[in-house]
């Protein structure tokens, strides 16, 4: 019985690894924001009364993804906003057209591209608005993003 349990655990681990293997974290090391640091601004209190965020800021994101490993493969690219210690941040963006416009909240991911990866790089420029509440752990906060590719 004990050996069977160990074997099942091992198989479960293998199955989990196999399922995750289709999600790849893309090399987005050449992606950067302008400016790299932004100052949040207060929103009118009436506008923020619906819980949509008391402060906001705008940033430009120059996206450059290294997709050489997936060129011509079909799948979906997602933008992920990682969760941190404070209440969720909302990011809403428009694009130049290569990637899709969209919205993502901390701890979630949103589709930005679907289809065959066109080549070695995937580039676009996003105009992103960030909104947050005021319950931060300190006066500064770092938002971590990354891109994921789910192959079909």
């Amino acid at each position, binding site marked *: 019985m004990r*050996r069977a349990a*160990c*074997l099942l655990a*091992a*198989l479960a*681990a*293998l199955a989990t*690894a196999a399922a*995750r*293997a289709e999600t*790849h*974290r*893309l*090399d*987005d*090391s050449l*992606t*950067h*924001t302008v400016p*790299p*640091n*932004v*100052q*949040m*601004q*207060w*929103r*009118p*209190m*009436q*506008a923020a009364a619906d819980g949509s965020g*008391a*402060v906001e*800021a705008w*940033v430009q*994101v120059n996206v450059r993804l290294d997709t050489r490993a997936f060129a011509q493969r079909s799948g979906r690219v997602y933008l992920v906003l*990682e969760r941190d210690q404070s209440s969720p941040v909302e990011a809403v963006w428009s694009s130049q057209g290569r990637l899709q416009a969209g919205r993502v909240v901390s701890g979630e991911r949103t589709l930005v591209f679907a289809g065959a990866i066109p080549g070695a790089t995937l580039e676009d420029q996003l105009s992103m608005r*960030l909104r*947050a509440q*005021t*319950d*931060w*752990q*300190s*006066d*500064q*906060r*770092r*938002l*971590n*993003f*990354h*891109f994921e590719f789910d192959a079909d």
Partner: protein
Amino acid sequence: MFRRLLAPRSIAALMLIAVGSPAAFGWSISLNQASRRVYLHVGNGAPAGNSNATSGPINVVRVNVPANQVGNGVPQAMTSNSTQSTSLQGDGYATCLTPASQLLIGASYQRNNAGGGSAPMSATLRVSSPAVLTNTNGDTIPISEISWTVSAQGSPVPNVIPAGTFNGGSQFLATIPANTYIENCHSFRYANSARRAAGTYTARVTYTVTSP
């Protein structure tokens, strides 16, 4: 048999490492929290959402007392040149329906909760006034001859900034709790309690919001 059980575990561990290795990728944005901020408008002003906006003109409240009514003890309603009827806090609500006789005053205090909220919990709205109004001949009228009532269309707290009478000094008007906006309409009147020398008497009162 023990070895056969070890092998899959090793494979699984290696695969998890392989999956985890691209974690070096990713990009980030550093955010600086909005600074503590107070906002105030008296009469015509800029919307509360414009962080760098400054106020508009200094509005004038005035009254012309007919010669045959000077000093008869009948209070005289004052008019203003303000045209601000709608709230400046963001919803455009018509708080003061008749700005020619109502001066819309709005104030707010915003702070973040960083570090457990070390910034003060509230701000203070005050008004300061000189002791007298004066004319070009040096004649004076006590500023205490001017008082105001308050109202606010559709508000459950129309007296959030209370009615009062200028006292010739700095006087407390209201506490503004953190992340709240207060506003109402002030209608001024001249008490007209004594005869005065003819002339145009003026004085300037100043409203301030402070957070230590």
